[in-house]
């Protein structure tokens, strides 16, 4: 029971981190109809900028400044890159963001090299918050949870309760009408793109110390983020939240409980073949859940796409 609680906290941390990325991505998708492949790259940039700033000014200034820089960069990419490519259609837009993701990874390697950066948890938060039957929970994890929830509540408030949020929501569904009412829709798009990438930047700043700041970090998380918003339903903020938490918990639990395929198959009445070592299914029989934890999201996505193509909370297919 205690172990479940510990894993739940871990799952929550992973899930909320995923949500900070997928929230921005799904907003950008519903706005421009294009998936930003470079989204996780902005997350990586956030971590690297925060590392660089934290050397000079400390962790907290990094948390404050790095997302701002990332947001401005993101807005610049929208203004001078995506808007230009937009005229060619959706597929070139996707390809553009894909190329951008490659380019940012190479750029990061160019500036910071291929090794992991010594970006670590600040001393203020480097202690054990509490322990659950011998399993200590670091304070930094609690800090991550509170930051993520705070950002989610803030986003929800801005989007649903403020005038700006209303205009954004209207611009998402009826850009022409909103434009006719005198609002600067391209500016709104640029702003939403900037805020979305800044959110990814925040995620990078707080994830960098625990998950490691290295050039592959965008790639590791990137495709999981896409999977998340596809499972949640493209363009749905609530879907992104549910799917993020689902994936976070699923992978954490699969990693910490060693469930063997052999036991599962035996339990449902399939007997282990005698000549297991020669069987072509031997790898299938010896599967364990930690082994497949990282591909569970993809399996889930394929299943969702087959049985409910619009995703968990999606309204329509495309």
């Amino acid at each position, binding site marked *: 029971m205690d172990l479940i609680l510990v894993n739940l906290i871990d799952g929550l941390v992973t899930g909320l981190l995923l949500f900070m990325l997928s929230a921005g991505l799904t907003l950008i998708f519903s706005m421009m109809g294009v998936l930003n492949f470079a989204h996780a790259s902005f997350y990586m940039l956030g971590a690297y900028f925060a590392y660089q700033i934290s050397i000079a000014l400390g962790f907290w200034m990094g948390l404050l400044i790095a997302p701002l820089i990332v947001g401005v960069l993101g807005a610049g990419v929208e203004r001078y890159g995506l808007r*230009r490519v937009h005229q*060619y259609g959706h597929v070139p837009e996707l*390809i553009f963001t894909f*190329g951008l993701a490659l380019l940012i990874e190479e750029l990061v390697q160019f500036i910071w090299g291929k090794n992991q950066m010594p970006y670590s948890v600040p001393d203020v938060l480097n202690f054990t918050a509490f322990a659950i039957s011998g399993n200590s929970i670091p304070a930094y994890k609690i800090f991550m949870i509170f930051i993520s929830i705070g950002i989610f509540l803030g986003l929800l408030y801005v989007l649903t309760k403020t005038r700006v949020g209303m205009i954004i929501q209207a611009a998402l569904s009826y850009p022409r009408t909103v434009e006719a009412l005198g609002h600067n829709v391209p500016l709104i798009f640029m702003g939403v793109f900037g805020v979305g990438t800044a959110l990814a930047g925040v995620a990078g700043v707080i994830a960098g110390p625990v998950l490691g700041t290295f050039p592959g970090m965008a790639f590791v998380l990137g495709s999981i983020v896409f999977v998340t918003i596809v499972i949640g339903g493209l363009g749905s903020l609530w879907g992104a939240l549910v799917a993020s938490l689902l994936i976070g918990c699923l992978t954490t639990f699969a990693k910490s409980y060693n469930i063997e395929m052999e036991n599962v198959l035996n339990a449902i009445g399939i007997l282990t073949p005698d000549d297991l070592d020669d069987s072509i299914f031997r790898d299938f029989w010896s599967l364990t859940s930690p082994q497949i934890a990282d591909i569970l999201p993809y399996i889930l996505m394929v299943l969702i796409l087959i049985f409910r193509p619009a995703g968990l909370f999606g309204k329509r297919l495309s």
Partner: protein
Amino acid sequence: MTDQITTDPAKAVERLRAGSMTLSLAPWVIATVVLVFLPMVFTNNSALTIMNQMSITIVFALAYNMLLGQGGMLSFGHAVYAGVGGFACMHIMNMSDFFETIPLVILPVFGGLFGMGLAMIVGSFSTRSAGTVFAMISLGVGELIAACSVIIVAFFGGEEGISGNRTYAQPFFGVEFLQQIEVYYLTIAWLIISAALMYLWSRTPVGRMANAVRDNPERAQFLGYSARWVRYYSFVASGFFAGIAGGLFAINYEILTEENLNTASSGVILLVTFLGGVGFFFGPIIGAIAFTLLQTVLSLSTELWAFYAGVLFVATVMFFPGGLAGLIMMHVPAFKLGKASWLFVPYLKTLLPAAIGTLGLAALVEMTFHLRHAATGDNEMTLFWTTFDSHDIMPWVIAGAVTVIGLGIAKVTAPSLRDAWNEANTAGGVS
């Protein structure tokens, strides 16, 4: 839906092609002759390796363009079909009883069939819609299978992959494919066959409907065609030819690893195809040739070649969405008007300084990289056949000056190039 990439000069080409049968056959004959006689020009083994690599990339890129260019479907996991085809071929190579009874030349067919089989399974749910959803499914499936490669060791061989020996096959008219040159002729034979088949496919009603579905799926459905099935056929055919490319890879390298399946390989093939130009059939061919050369030449001389490739890719998407083929075909109207020669001098005036300026910029990039990442005390670096101290101020001044002057001249002469371009593309006009 605006999922199309069209370049206007296409129409000019159509008219040109419709002109005569000889004109449409000529490029094929010339290409075949060039391919056959190429090994006599470049005789050493490393050149053969590059040419084999190039041929395989061409087949793969053409197969990829069946999806991207002709069908409007963007796949982020197409390396999987080539990879699975290659792995299947590898397993056939290792089944010595069976392998001894077939000649090596037909092995790629098995690769193609396995690629096609996988495409049939995946396509059954992924081709329901094009655009973003298709791209996402392709990415997910690609990641899934790439991740499986380290889990399902029996088929994918885990980390070290699987290897085999092509010479155990039944000799084909006495040829045992011991030498690289024999493999080269096998590869180009398959290259020509697959290219011709893919070209003919694009001329069949199914290929034509793929274009229609790409441009306007709704209208195609009103005409009575199921957009989904049209996409499915394109997808399956593309999987087949990708599998052939994988089979050729297996024959050529005799080893396949996880690297042949992962997203990075899928990204490379997207880059190759887009660089060449998706709007034309021959685009991917140009892209594959250019990219392989670029990769070979650049990776020998600089660590940063992936960075340059990324810059080139993003620049292509932003400024030349038609790719290299699009750039070439832009000049067709000028040629038909007989004014192409007018462009020569303006091009020289703009592009030569621009190229020199770009090289200067690259030098700056290389020097920055050296300054930041070279071991301490290692100040010497060699660039463009000159060795100097990267911590000196002089090389920086020179490189900076070359960059600024080169790009500056290009910027100044650009308007006259634009004028010349407009002039050359206007019918009539005396001056």
